[in-house]
C-alpha cells in the first residue's frame, strides 16, 4: 500500500474572504423545499420557528382579545364555545408562541454564542421542529372542529390532546438539543461561567422545562386515555380536563417563560451600554435562583386545592421578586456605567422587565386567602373558567415574555434574518407592545378583587374591554416588528451594533451554513470585546 497517497479532505475549505476567522462549511443541503424539509442547519430551523411563531403570535393574542371582548358584552356572542376560546388562547400563547420563539432564537443563536459549528443532535432538532409544527396544526384543526378541553366532538377532543402532547414532546426534544449544545459544544476556554448570558439562561430554562413539562405530559396522557377509551371516570370528564393542565399557565410555572428574557436582557443591556456585565457570576447565580423558584410541577390545584396556602407556594411566590430585582439592579449598573444606545432591543427588554416585575409582585399577592383572588368556586358564579386575577397575571407574564423575546429577535436579527430591523418602526412596536401588555393585564388584576369589593364587578364590562384593547395592542406590536424586519436593511456588518461582546458578533451576518473555523482559546466572557480593545490598544 502506498503510504504517500493523498489524504482525504477532512477540513472544510477556508472562506477566501475571511481566511482566519470563519470557515464556511460546504453546503450539503439541497435547495428549495426538499432542502428546507431535510435541513438540520440550526439557523434555518431557528428562522422557521421564529417566523411561524410570530405569525401565530398575532393570531393567539387576537384569540385572547376575542375572549375578553366577549366577556365585555352583556350578551356574549359565542357563549357555548367561550371555554374553548379561552383554553385555545392559553395553550397557543404559551406553546405556539412564547416557548417556540425562545426555542427558535436559541436554536439559531446559542451555537453562534458558544463557538459551536452546529446545534447538538441536528436531526433531532429538525424532528422537533416538524413535530412541533405538526402538533400545532393538529391542535388548531382540533379546535376548529369543536375540540379542545370540554369540546363537543369526542374525536376532536382526543385530537386536541394528542396535538398538545406532540407539542410538548417536540419542544422537550428541542430543549434537550439546546441544553446539550451549551454543555458539550463550547469552544476552547469557554468555561461554563464564561457562557453568554442568553445561553446560560437557556440552560436554566431548558432544565426547568425538562423537569416540569413531563408532569404536564403525564396529566395530558391521563386525560387522553380516560377520554379516549370511553366512559371517562374522572380525568377525561369534560370540564375536568382543563383544570388538570391549568397549573402550567399559572404561577410559579408560568414564570419559566421569563427565564430566557433575563438572559436576553443581560446581553442586550451590556452590548447597548458598551460595558462588561459587572458581577457576572452573581448574575448567573441569580438567574439560576429565579429558575429554581419557577418549578411549578408540584402546584396542581386540581389535585391539591390547598396548594395556595402551602408555605412552599407562598414562599416561592414572594421570594421570586428578589432575583428579578437583582437582575434589574445588574442591568441598572450596566446602564449607569456605560453610554447606552437607545435602540429598539433595549426598549423591548426594559419594557418586558417592567411588565415582568409587575407580574411577580402581583403573583406575590395571589396566595392571600382573604382577597379571594384564586377563589375558583367564587368566580364560577360569574361563569368564568379561571379567576380574572389569574388571567391578568397570565397576560402580564406572557406579554413580558413575548416582548422580551421580540427584543432578542430584533437584537440578533442580523444573525437570524441577515438584516437589521428598521429601528423607528421597532421603537414604535416597543411602545405599543409595552402599553398593550400593561393594559392587557392590569384591568383584569383589578377585576380580580371583585369578590372582595363587589363594586368592582359593576365595572366588569369596562375592565374586560380595556384588557381586550391591551391584548390587541400586543398583537399589533408583533405586526409592527414583522414590518420593521421586512423594512430593515441588508448589508449588515459582522458586529452590527459595533459594540458586540460575544462570539456571534465575530461571524458574518447572516452566518453562512456551517460554523466557526479554528478559534483561539477564549480567555474571557467577552472575547469580541477583548479583541476590539486589544486592537485599540495596539
Amino acid at each position, binding site marked *: 500500500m502506498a503510504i504517500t497517497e493523498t489524504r482525504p479532505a477532512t477540513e472544510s475549505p477556508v472562506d477566501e474572504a475571511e481566511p482566519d476567522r470563519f470557515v464556511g462549511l460546504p453546503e450539503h443541503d439541497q435547495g428549495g423545499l426538499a432542502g428546507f424539509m431535510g435541513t438540520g442547519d440550526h439557523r434555518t430551523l431557528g428562522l422557521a420557528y421564529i417566523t411561524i411563531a410570530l405569525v401565530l403570535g398575532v393570531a393567539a393574542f387576537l384569540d385572547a382579545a376575542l375572549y375578553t371582548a366577549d366577556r365585555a358584552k352583556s350578551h356574549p356572542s359565542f357563549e357555548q364555545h367561550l371555554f374553548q376560546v379561552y383554553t385555545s388562547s392559553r395553550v397557543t400563547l404559551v406553546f405556539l408562541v412564547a416557548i417556540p420563539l425562545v426555542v427558535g432564537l436559541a436554536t439559531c443563536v446559542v451555537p453562534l454564542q458558544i463557538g459551536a459549528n452546529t446545534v447538538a443532535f441536528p436531526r433531532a432538532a429538525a424532528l422537533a421542529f416538524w413535530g412541533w409544527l405538526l402538533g400545532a396544526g393538529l391542535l388548531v384543526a382540533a379546535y376548529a372542529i369543536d375540540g379542545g378541553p370540554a369540546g363537543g366532538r369526542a374525536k376532536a377532543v382526543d385530537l386536541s390532546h394528542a396535538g398538545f402532547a406532540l407539542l410538548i414532546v417536540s419542544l422537550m426534544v428541542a430543549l434537550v438539543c439546546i441544553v446539550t449544545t451549551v454543555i458539550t459544544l463550547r469552544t476552547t476556554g469557554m468555561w461554563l461561567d464564561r457562557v453568554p448570558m442568553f445561553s446560560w439562561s437557556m440552560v436554566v430554562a431548558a432544565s426547568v422545562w425538562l423537569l416540569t413539562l413531563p408532569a404536564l405530559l403525564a*396529566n395530558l396522557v*391521563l386525560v387522553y386515555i380516560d377520554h379516549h377509551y370511553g366512559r371517562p371516570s374522572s380525568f377525561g370528564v369534560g370540564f375536568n380536563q382543563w383544570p388538570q393542565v391549568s397549573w402550567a399557565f399559572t404561577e410559579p410555572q408560568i414564570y419559566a417563560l421569563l427565564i430566557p428574557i433575563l438572559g436576553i436582557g443581560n446581553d442586550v443591556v451590556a452590548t447597548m451600554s458598551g460595558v462588561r456585565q459587572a458581577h457576572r457570576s452573581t448574575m448567573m447565580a441569580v438567574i439560576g435562583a429565579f429558575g429554581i423558584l419557577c418549578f411549578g410541577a408540584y402546584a396542581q390545584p386540581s389535585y391539591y386545592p390547598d396548594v395556595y396556602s402551602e408555605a412552599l407556594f407562598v414562599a416561592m411566590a414572594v421570594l421570586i421578586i428578589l432575583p428579578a430585582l437583582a437582575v434589574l439592579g445588574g442591568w441598572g449598573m450596566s446602564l449607569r456605567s456605560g453610554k447606552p444606545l437607545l435602540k429598539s432591543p433595549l426598549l423591548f427588554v426594559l419594557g418586558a422587565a417592567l411588565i415582568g416585575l409587575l407580574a411577580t409582585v402581583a403573583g406575590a399577592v395571589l396566595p392571600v386567602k382573604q382577597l379571594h383572588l384564586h377563589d375558583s368556586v367564587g368566580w364560577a358564579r360569574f361563569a368564568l373558567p379561571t379567576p380574572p386575577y389569574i388571567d391578568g397575571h397570565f397576560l402580564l407574564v406572557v406579554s413580558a415574555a413575548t416582548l422580551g423575546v421580540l427584543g432578542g429577535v430584533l437584537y440578533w436579527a442580523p444573525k437570524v434574518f441577515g438584516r437589521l430591523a428598521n429601528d423607528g418602526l421597532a421603537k414604535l412596536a416597543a411602545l405599543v407592545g409595552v402599553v398593550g401588555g400593561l393594559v392587557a393585564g392590569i384591568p383584569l388584576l383589578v377585576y380580580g378583587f371583585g369578590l372582595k369589593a363587589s363594586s368592582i364587578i359593576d365595572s366588569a364590562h369596562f375592565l374586560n374591554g380595556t384588557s381586550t384593547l391591551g391584548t390587541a395592542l400586543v398583537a399589533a406590536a408583533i405586526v409592527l416588528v414583522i414590518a420593521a424586519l421586512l423594512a430593515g436593511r441588508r448589508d449588515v456588518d459582522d458586529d452590527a451594533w459595533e459594540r458586540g461582546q460575544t462570539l456571534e458578533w465575530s461571524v458574518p451576518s447572516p452566518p453562512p451554513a456551517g460554523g466557526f473555523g479554528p478559534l483561539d482559546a477564549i480567555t474571557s466572557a467577552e472575547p469580541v470585546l477583548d479583541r476590539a480593545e486589544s486592537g485599540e490598544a495596539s
Partner: protein
Amino acid sequence: MAVALTDEYDADLVIADAPPPVPTRSRVLLVGTVYASAACVMFFVGLMGVYLQLRSVGRLHGGTWLPQAVHIPLTQPNVMLFTLLMSSVTVQWAVFAAKDDDRRHLYLAIGVSLLLAFAFINQAAYLYTLMGLDVHGNQQSVLIYTITGAQLAMLVAAMVFLVLMGFRSLVGSQTSTQRDGITAAAIFWHATSVVYLLIWFAIYVTK
C-alpha cells in the same frame, strides 16, 4: 513546526512535530441522554404524584383504594423487579466490556439484557391477566394501566437504544476510548429500572 538540530539540514536529525492532542470527547450523546432520562423520570413522578394523591384522598374518606374485585398479587411484581435489576447489572456489564475492548462479552451482555427485558414484558403481560382490571372502569384502572404501560414503553425504547448501540459496536464504534453510546444506553436503562422500582413500591407493595 519541525526544528533542525544542525545548521546543515539533515532529514534524520529533524525532530518531528508533536502529534496533535487527542480531542476531548464532547460527550454529546451522554449529556443528551441524561437530560432525556431525567425528563422521562419526571413524567413518571408526575403520574405517581397523581396516583398517590388520589389514593391518599380515597383512603382519607374511609374507603379502599382498589375496587373490591381487584386483586394485585405480589409474586409477579417481585420477580419482575429482580428481572429488571438483573438486566441493569448485565447492561453495566456491557459498559465494562466496552471499556476493556472485550467485544465478545459486550455482545453477550447486550443479548442477555435484551432477553431479560423480554422476560419482564412477558411477566407484565401475565400480571395484567391476573389483575383483571378494566381500563375504562374507574380512575384506579386508568392510572395503573397508564403508569405501568408507559413504563413498558420506556423499556421498549431502552431496548431499541441498546440494540442500536449494539449495531454500532458491531462496526467498531464503541471502544475503550469512545464508549459514550453504550454508556448512554445504560443510563437510560438504569432510569427504566429506577422507574419500575418506584412503581413496584407505590403500586404493588403498598397498594
